């Protein structure tokens, strides 16, 4: 099977509010696929559906041929051992050191001796450039470093699938570049499949193999980063060129200003 993750005809809503509708996506093995779109477009929801944290109302999400939301808890947890996820702000355990954060999944899922565990953790930390920060607590490191520690933790068990939720949000340009390179290098050296959710155009386009653009819970464009840069699609153009107005309106939909101010007669 060439696709590690397949999404078919997916519908998801929070109560009466639809988030995703009629969504179909493929995530081929070994590739780094970006899911882009504005805030509230449903990008993170896609990751949560793949991870089985929420269930769709219709359609399927399959990982390695297994339909995620049909698995019982035990099998879902078994599947998750093959996944790593980087949360938007790292989600590090604040009461543990950097070392213990990375060691956490190893301690929970393996019985490896303490010396080997130490070596494995230090190698993971070395891969993200933070071996010498091992004994620091999360509140003693910067946001960019926290993201890298979380990345080391996400790859601790050599996952087949790594999901990144807004890994560049709030980072300075140097940290952003470092993180982007790490994501690409880890994908290639581990041979894993990566799903990158982001709205940062330049960094994402520099490392992604393929890009899906989401808007209003639907795919509005897809292709390679080069195709997206050359796209005439109004949404893609607005997004890539950071234009304030376009298919995504500047104003939240509703009454006009004239109506709110009581000008221009009654309707």
């Amino acid at each position, binding site marked *: 099977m060439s696709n590690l993750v397949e999404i078919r005809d997916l519908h998801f809503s929070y109560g009466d509010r639809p988030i995703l509708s009629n969504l179909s996506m493929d995530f081929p093995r070994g590739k780094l696929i970006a899911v882009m779109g504005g805030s509230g477009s449903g990008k993170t929801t896609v990751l949560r559906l793949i*991870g089985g*944290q929420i269930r769709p109302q219709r359609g399927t999400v399959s990982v390695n041929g297994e339909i995620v939301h049909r698995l019982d*808890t035990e099998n879902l*947890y*078994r599947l*998750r*051992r093959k*996944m*790593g*996820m980087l*949360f*938007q*702000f790292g*989600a*590090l*355990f*604040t009461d543990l050191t950097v070392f213990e954060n990375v060691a*956490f*999944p190893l301690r*929970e*899922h393996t019985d490896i001796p303490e010396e080997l565990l130490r070596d494995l953790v230090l190698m993971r930390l070395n891969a993200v450039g933070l071996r010498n920060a091992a004994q620091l607590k999360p509140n003693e490191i910067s946001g960019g470093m926290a993201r890298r520690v*979380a990345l080391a*933790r996400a790859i601790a068990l050599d996952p087949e699938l790594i999901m990144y939720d807004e890994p560049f949000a709030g980072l300075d340009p140097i940290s952003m570049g470092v993180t982007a390179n790490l994501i690409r290098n880890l994908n290639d050296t581990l041979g894993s499949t990566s799903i990158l959710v982001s709205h940062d155009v330049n960094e994402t386009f520099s490392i992604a193999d393929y890009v899906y653009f989401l808007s209003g819970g639907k795919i509005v464009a897809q292709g390679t980063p080069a195709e997206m840069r050359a796209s005439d699609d109004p949404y893609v153009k607005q997004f890539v060129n950071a234009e304030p107005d376009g298919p995504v309106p500047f104003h939240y939909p509703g009454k006009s200003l004239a109506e709110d101010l009581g000008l221009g007669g009654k309707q």
Partner: protein
Amino acid sequence: MIARFLGFIGAFVLDTIARIGFVTRSFFKLLGRAPGALKRPTLISEQIHFIGNYSLLIIVVSGLFVGMVLGLQGYYTLSQFGADEKLGQLVALSLLRELGPVVTALLFAGRAGTSLTAEIGLMKAGEQLSAMEMMAVNPVQRVLAPRFWGGIIAMPVLATIFSAIGVIGGYLVGVQLIGVDEGAFWSQMQGNIDVRRDILNGVLKSFVFGIAVTFTALFQGYEAQPTPEGVSRATTRTVVIASLMVLGLDFIMTALMFNK
């Protein structure tokens, strides 16, 4: 108008039943995961230390003052009937049967319960619980169950310490300050306290309170809205709900245990 009112009542009843069902299901889910946590005793001992040891100071100080007040008030009342030598029995019975378990549980809800709710709520807000789920680690078993054990083990121990310190407080005021006969104070206590009926029932009460308060605190934290306001509200709810549960359960258990 009447239809709307009936609709409102109906919605309220259905919502309440659904809520009770959800809480009950969560309780049994936690109970189902609790035995698994026993495989990792270090996690439980850490929580006993965190929950129990850090509550010790407030328990000791409160126990001392409650015992001292009991000594004073008990003496004023008993001396009117010439029964001041019964002071030891009164202090010990009040503490072992009621004040020890109840006041400890109320203090525990305020000190350790709020701390548990805030900790779990902030872990949720910081996506730490979601991260754990995505690492194939069940947060109910890894985070909630050890704290649950910590709470139900720590509570009877704290209540026992509260009662013991309270007796010392009563002794200091009754015997050392007021001058009640020391032999009478201790012998009345020894002769009229029954191990099963008084001491074990008190321990059983504090065990039940430990389950009620710790579960309430954990549930409120786990189900808190992941925002500063949500965590703040959950913390407040922990104190209110846990305190009312303790007082309600105390009445029921007292009626069942001492119904002669």
